[in-house]
């Protein structure tokens, strides 16, 4: 039997000990003596969140397919265990072997959201790895980051030896081979990093230097040694159909956020919403074939025993054979009491039909994400959803028996005005009115229930809004108040509920998203003062962060309240994602004119992603009859 890193008494005195014991079905065990490389894969949040992440499952499976690598998992110990580990000097360990992380060859940390940054320091700290990469020797694993936040790695650059820019399926093998060679040749750690920096997509922050202008903006960002590339190219898995996919994902004992089989039907999005980072980062859109999806679905269900399956993608309605996959899942699995969990779909006859097949109409709700209240704003953000389409969809659904609608909006978008905010209330009102007009009294299931949720917009790198300014927490709350007042003034206000988010978290997220290397000091300071699990409301403390900015001598407003000029050098400019800065600037200008850009299937807009020669860029388009630029 495996020996656990924590004693029985300790495990029995903390919340959910199952977070720390490993041993789940499909977890991979190898002989540590017989592998060349030990890789600890980390999601810097609590187990239930980390275990729900598909990307880690993909890499875990892919690494473990290699005989010479043993990949294990590690998550952030929750605050109760964190405290005890510090008190008793218990080193952080991996779930499978229960061995200390410090003894691993690699520590890979996935960066899914900015608010996990202090948790990265927790992971390093508890592992006994120096926080600053510059202080590490071969006694420490190579700390490598990846995932969406790695597209602006600068705020956390000093904590990492390497970043992997792009999709994990592509150059990891090269990196692992290089590592093996370097260890055999007994080269220095620095030399290994230097060679790694020459692998496409690998960024080694150690070999770059930033200089600043007097006004605080970046003057230059350059390699400090010969042979280090000045540009890092995003890596793309061009053939999704044959890309590795975990057919036997690990099955947690405890209930995790995503307790089901997840089928990634496509990567990328054809839409080009101007606020959406994922939509740009994962260009071009690439689909998995229906055949391979069917195969994955049944194997994964067989191997896990999960009772639910869901589809994952940015915009599932755009998958070219959505009907094919959905019908297959219903026909094949519904009879076996497996829940089909539908993604949010464009509301039309097809989606209403499948929704009524897989869910209880009376209990479920329709979801629309207009993102902005007025048509002008929806054009600004290039969200091709019109009021007409929403109202028609809602009417059709109301006739079908639905009476719950969820609406998602953003507030604090660039170019947004008071009237646009009020239009959020007006749109909700129109939907409510549609219900009372369309459904005769005797057929109504009580009132309709419209839930309006707004989140505050955070401009992200590699989007047309990367030049935009943000607002102060007070401003944001004012925006929410406007919406709230307006909703209260509506005739059907009793049918409308309104939720909005905290505003100060938004501001910090904004700093991290577009920050530069100077932010690292603030993160360290806040961590020292106790910041941890910042994404968790109960752990969040804005005052502590403000204090950290002050102590570190960093001006928060510089990162948030400033609209950027066309020629400003961004901290992430050295990363090339295919989509060009030129295209993004053009889109920013079009946003100012409230001009929409067609989606990739309607017409190629020459964003630059065609250089990857894959997916939608290679499709024949009826309108043009040719390839993308």
């Amino acid at each position, binding site marked *: 039997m495996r020996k656990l890193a924590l004693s*029985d008494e300790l495990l029995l005195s903390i919340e959910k000990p*199952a977070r720390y014991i490993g041993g789940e079905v499909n977890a991979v065990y190898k002989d540590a003596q017989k592998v060349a490389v030990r890789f600890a894969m980390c999601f810097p949040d609590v187990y239930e969140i980390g275990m729900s992440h598909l990307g880690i499952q993909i890499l875990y499976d892919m690494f473990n397919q290699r005989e010479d690598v043993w990949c294990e998992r590690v998550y952030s110990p929750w605050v109760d265990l964190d405290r005890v580990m510090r008190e008793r000097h218990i080193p952080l360990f991996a779930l499978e072997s229960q061995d200390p992380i410090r003894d691993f060859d690699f520590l890979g940390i996935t960066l899914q959201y900015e608010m996990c940054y202090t948790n990265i320091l927790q992971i390093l700290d508890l592992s006994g790895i120096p926080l600053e990469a510059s202080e590490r020797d071969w006694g420490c694993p190579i700390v490598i980051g990846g995932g969406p936040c790695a597209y602006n790695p600068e705020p956390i650059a000093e904590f990492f030896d390497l970043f992997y820019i792009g999709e994990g399926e592509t150059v990891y093998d090269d990196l692992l081979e290089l590592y093996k060679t370097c260890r055999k040749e007994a080269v220095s750690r620095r030399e290994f990093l230097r060679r790694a920096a020459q692998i496409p997509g690998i960024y080694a922050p150690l070999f770059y230097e930033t200089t600043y202008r007097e006004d605080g903006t970046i003057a230059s960002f350059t390699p400090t040694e010969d042979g280090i590339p000045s540009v890092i190219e995003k890596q793309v898995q061009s053939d999704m159909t044959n890309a590795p996919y975990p057919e036997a994902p690990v099955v947690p004992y405890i209930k995790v956020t995503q307790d089901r089989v997840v089928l990634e039907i496509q990567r990328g999005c054809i839409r080009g919403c101007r606020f959406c980072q994922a939509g740009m980062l994962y260009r071009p859109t690439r689909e998995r074939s229906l055949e391979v999806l069917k195969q994955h679905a049944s194997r994964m269900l067989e191997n896990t*025993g999960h009772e639910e399956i869901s589809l994952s993608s940015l915009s599932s309605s755009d998958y070219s054979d959505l009907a094919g996959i959905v019908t297959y899942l219903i026909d094949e699995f519904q009879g076996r009491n497996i829940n089909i969990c539908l993604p949010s779909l464009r509301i039309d006859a097809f989606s209403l039909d499948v929704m009524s097949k897989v869910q209880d109409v009376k209990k479920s709700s329709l979801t629309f994400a207009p993102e902005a209240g007025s048509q002008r704003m929806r054009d600004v953000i290039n969200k091709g959803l019109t009021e007409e389409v929403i109202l028609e969809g809602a009417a059709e659904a109301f006739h079908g028996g639905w009476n719950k609608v969820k609406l998602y909006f953003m507030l604090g978008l660039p170019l947004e005005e008071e009237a646009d905010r009020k239009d959020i209330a007006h749109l909700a009102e129109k939907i409510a009115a549609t219900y009372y007009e369309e459904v005769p009294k005797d057929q109504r299931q009580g009132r309709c229930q419209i839930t309006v949720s707004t989140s505050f917009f955070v401009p992200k790198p590699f989007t047309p809004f990367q030049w935009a300014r943000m607002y102060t927490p007070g401003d944001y709350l004012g925006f929410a108040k406007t919406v709230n007042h307006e909703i209260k003034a509506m005739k059907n206000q009793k049918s409308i509920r309104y939720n909005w988010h905290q505003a100060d978290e938004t501001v910090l997220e904004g700093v991290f998203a577009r920050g530069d290397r100077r932010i690292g000091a603030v993160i360290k300071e806040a961590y020292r003062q106790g910041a941890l699990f910042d994404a968790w409301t109960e752990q969040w403390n804005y005052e502590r962060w403000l204090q950290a900015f002050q102590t570190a001598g960093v001006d928060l407003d510089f990162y948030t309240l400033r609209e950027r000029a066309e020629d400003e050098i961004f901290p992430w400019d050295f990363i090339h994602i295919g989509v060009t800065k030129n295209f993004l600037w053009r889109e920013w200008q079009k946003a100012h004119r409230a001009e929409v850009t067609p989606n990739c299937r309607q017409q190629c807009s020459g964003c630059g992603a065609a250089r990857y020669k894959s997916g939608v860029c290679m499709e024949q388009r009826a309108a043009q009859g040719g390839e993308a630029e």
Partner: protein
Amino acid sequence: MKVRVKFSKYGIMKFIGHLDVMRYFQKAMRRAGIDIAFTEGMSPHMIMSFAQPLGVGLTSDGEYMDIEVRTPMSSEEAIRRLNQAGAEGITVTEWKQIPEDKGSKAMTLVAAADYELRFRKGFAPKLDWQSNISHFFAQQSIPVIKKTKKGEREVDIRPFLYEMYVNAGTVYFKLAAGSEANLKPELVMDAYLATQGLEAQPFAYEIHRRELYADIGKDGKRKLVALGALGEDVPCA
């Protein structure tokens, strides 16, 4: 066909609570390809009920659940499949067909349980704590103070204590279990230690459930049989 499944829970599985053990078996049944029956209605769930939840931290060789299968399977085949689809720390040991009637449900039948209790390494009292156990058991009544929501209340636990003896540092208990009366071994042990002027530290006990029993005695006379003994092995077709 109604089936009673017996399993052991040990090793790291002791940290998995009752609800998660249920979830574990729901998924294990699917992986093993057991054709289990579902309830009717809008949200069908597997027909599966456990005899008696086991607390977190305890191990057991005597866990039971009753299920209903649509396609019969031999005991040998079912046990093999479930263990193959299972995780370390849970071993299925019996698969027995049981009568269809409602009164035969494990949950209703449970009347007693066997436990073993040891001190975790380093947690045993320094003084001799074993010598007076038979005395303790020989008492006519054992009053203990029970803390409830409404305050404290004295109860006599002796009627629910069927057996208690010690052998080489392990204390054996046979205790009333189930919905009518349920006595926990740690409560008995605490009461005994108190009579010796001792008190156990938190997490001092290592408790193992050995077996669950039904009472098939008549006229108020207790006759305990293991829950598994009430079913029949399913032979290979």
